[in-house]
């Protein structure tokens, strides 16, 4: 039961963070980042299995391989952006968190331009 391990780590980290936050909030910040990274590292093998499954689905549906890698890159960017902005929001820095989110959105829009162009080409070919 892997989920029991993860929930246990989460609850333990939550208790320790509450304990430390009373006196030293800046050390609680480091502890919450470490918890996030620990849980992510525990799930890394499973994440790669899911990615392999997605790539197999894409290959079966004959999706262009560059488009699949763009989608995976966008998922990575979204995950890192979400991690940064949530840690910042937890520590009360809403202004910085919203700027980090804005940067993530801009980069994702830029990376999805080739896919949008491909959709546009397909639609134009259907029309004309």
């Amino acid at each position, binding site marked *: 039961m892997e989920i029991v391990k993860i929930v246990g780590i989460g609850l333990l980290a939550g208790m320790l963070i509450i*304990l*430390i936050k009373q006196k030293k909030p800046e050390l609680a910040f480091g*502890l919450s980042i*470490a918890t996030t990274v620990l849980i992510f590292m525990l799930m890394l093998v499973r994440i790669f299995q899911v990615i392999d499954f997605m790539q197999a689905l894409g290959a079966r549906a004959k999706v262009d391989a560059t488009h699949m890698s763009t989608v995976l890159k966008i*998922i990575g960017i979204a995950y890192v952006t979400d991690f940064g902005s949530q840690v910042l929001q937890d520590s009360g820095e809403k202004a910085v968190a919203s700027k980090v989110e804005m940067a993530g959105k801009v980069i994702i829009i830029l990376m999805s331009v080739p896919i949008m162009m491909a959709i546009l080409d397909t639609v134009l070919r259907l029309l004309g």
Partner: protein
Amino acid sequence: MEIYDLLKIAGIGIIVSLVGSLLSQAGRKEQESLFTLMGFMIVMMMVVGLMTKFFAAVQTFAR
């Protein structure tokens, strides 16, 4: 990356807050702030190492 890293950071936090309160009760404010800064630096060095690992792992998504 093990749960020991987490417990190490939590232990540093608890020790720093305990010794900090001892020092502040003994009337040594500037030593307390230096001690807190030292603990913060140690934790930050560990956290930066962890975040390097994390970002390297996320970058392998787009092999």
